[in-house]
């Protein structure tokens, strides 16, 4: 197992290298220059040129890439073009906010999706099943930004129950309750789509499981239905869901881009959007690479969890 994990970690290096080349190329090919967004339209062409020269943006692309990469290997992600801050600090500042949002919404997605998926499967074709199915399709079909706006309109504007955005009340002392109060809406919005998908996957996986012979064996042992389903069924049913979950992990970054923008949540996603508008190359690259690492790690975790849940799998 340990050798397997080490091998997988080593395999990550060429993968991440490939991703970095492709992302760099795409970013470079995108129209616009970092200097275009810079402040004053009255800045002279010469000054802009000097700026381009100073940032190294006039070098040929492969030289730029090599310069960037040689710094990254040393752990230096460069300095933001617009904020003049080290990119590493900027990400470190915002990462906790994004992680809190991600973890919270993941937990939310799981605790809602799995029980409803199981219920939906064990009571197949019941009213509950149809209800859950309908709701999950609705959840899948609803765009995040629209749902977010509607929830803000309803809960923040009309009812005034939740704040419109931000991580905490400005100027107030730290309080957990205040944080949760701010967290709840963005977490719900971020969780919705995955919740819906996860419910469907749980349902179909459990439908397969309840037909298995070992479930009949468990019933023949005289166990109550809840023991049969949750002890004997669920562990088997979760195995395929693990893959989905591993793939879900990086999508939270994508989802958080929209949700963080909507709720002015100062996390990685919002940083990413801002950086893209400003053509802040070092920030864009750093976050892209962060997402790439998350994707590869998510897959690795899924593979490890497989072996944990299913004794038939050994590495």
């Amino acid at each position: 197992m340990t050798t397997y994990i080490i091998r997988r970690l080593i395999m990550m290096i060429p993968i991440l290298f490939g991703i970095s080349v492709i992302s760099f190329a795409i970013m470079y090919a995108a129209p616009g220059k970092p200097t275009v967004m810079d402040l004053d339209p009255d800045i002279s062409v010469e000054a802009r040129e000097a700026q381009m020269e100073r940032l190294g943006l006039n070098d040929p692309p492969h030289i730029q890439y090599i310069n960037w990469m040689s710094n990254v290997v040393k752990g230096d992600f460069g300095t933001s073009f617009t904020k003049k801050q080290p990119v590493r600090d900027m990400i470190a500042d915002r990462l906790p906010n994004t992680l809190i949002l991600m973890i919270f919404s993941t937990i939310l997605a799981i605790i809602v999706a799995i029980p409803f998926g199981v219920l939906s499967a064990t009571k197949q074709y019941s009213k509950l099943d149809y209800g859950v199915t309908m709701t999950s399709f609705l959840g899948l079909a609803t765009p995040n930004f629209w749902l977010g706006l509607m929830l803000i309109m309803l809960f923040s504007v009309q009812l005034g129950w939740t704040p419109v955005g931000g991580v905490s009340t400005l100027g107030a002392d730290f309080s957990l309750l205040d944080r949760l109060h701010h967290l709840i809406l963005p977490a719900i919005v971020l969780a919705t789509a995955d919740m819906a998908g996860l419910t469907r996957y749980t349902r179909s996986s459990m439908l397969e499981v309840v037909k298995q012979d070992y479930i009949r064996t468990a019933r023949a042992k005289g166990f109550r239905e809840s023991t049969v389903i949750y002890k004997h069924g669920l562990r088997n049913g979760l195995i395929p869901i693990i893959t989905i979950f591993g793939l879900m992990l990086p999508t939270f970054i994508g989802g958080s881009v929209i949700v963080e923008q909507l709720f002015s949540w100062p996390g990685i996603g919002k940083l990413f959007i801002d950086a893209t508008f400003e053509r802040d190359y070092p920030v864009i690259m750093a976050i892209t690479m962060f997402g790439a690492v998350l994707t590869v790690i998510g897959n690795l975790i899924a593979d490890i969890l497989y072996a944990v849940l299913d004794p038939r799998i050994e590495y």
Partner: protein
Amino acid sequence: MSTLLQVKNLKTHFFSKNKVLPVVDGVDFEVKKGETLAIVGESGSGKSITSLSIMGLVPKPGGKTVDGEIIFDGTDLLQLSENEMFKVRGNEIAMIFQEPMTSLNPVLTIGEQITEVLIYHKKMSKKEARQKAVELLKIVGFARAEEILDDYPHRLSGGMRQRVMIAMAMSCDPKLLIADEPTTALDVTVQAQILELMKELSEKFDSSIILITHDLGVVAELADRVIVMYGGQVVEETGIVELFDNPLHPYSKGLLGSVPKLDEEKERLSSIGGNVPSPDNFPKGCRFVTRCEHAMEKCLTEQPELKEIYPGRKSRCFLHDEGGNE
């Protein structure tokens, strides 16, 4: 011998959209203490559903036991609430299934799967249950039982898994063991071992067995008495020796005729033409009429009763009235 189980007029039907399928349609039989009763019949004759009805595990939705009595040790199981059935299943009546490869849970260890029954029904502590599990595994023939305990099912062969299933079934000392085609999925050499083991255990634990099979060789090996099922009904009930010497019902004769015999030289085995009619298409009269070579006018319109022809031997056929049988 006293009676352990008495099944009277058992009817288990399956309901689908505007159709009722009488899969088990008025089955009567009894099992005495310590006796092995075989239920024989082709696929679709209703033998498996009969056994699941006794367990109260008729597949849902769709299946339902609509009529009859299943008197086990003095109580009618059909009158018990689901809560009371939880105490019977796995405890007083245990069951082993046809597919040992898939009947064990792949993600739980053998130990967990045996001990959970003991902890649940016999309120044993984990430690006691583990000890008992080792004991049981030794009884069913595992020399290194302690090691097997922490293994997962995928490490065992089919025969070994069926041994584990048997150990699991016998763990609570059940009065009745229902074995649904226990050897069908196994290699021929292993089949004999498993049958031998079941015979041994039923004597040792003094439990009765209902053996469901379509393999007459297995019946000869293990059973004391036999009921032959066809189309959801019992067509013949008889002792094991009598079945092989002198089957009464034309269907039983057909079944026996399709078994190869060593002392006969035949080019072809005889077979019963056609298939078991499907439950939504049972003939109006005798269920076997479509395949019976002795079919008469009467058989088309009237259903014969299951009647005692000789002491302890019943058959469901009009031929006996005519004196046409012997």
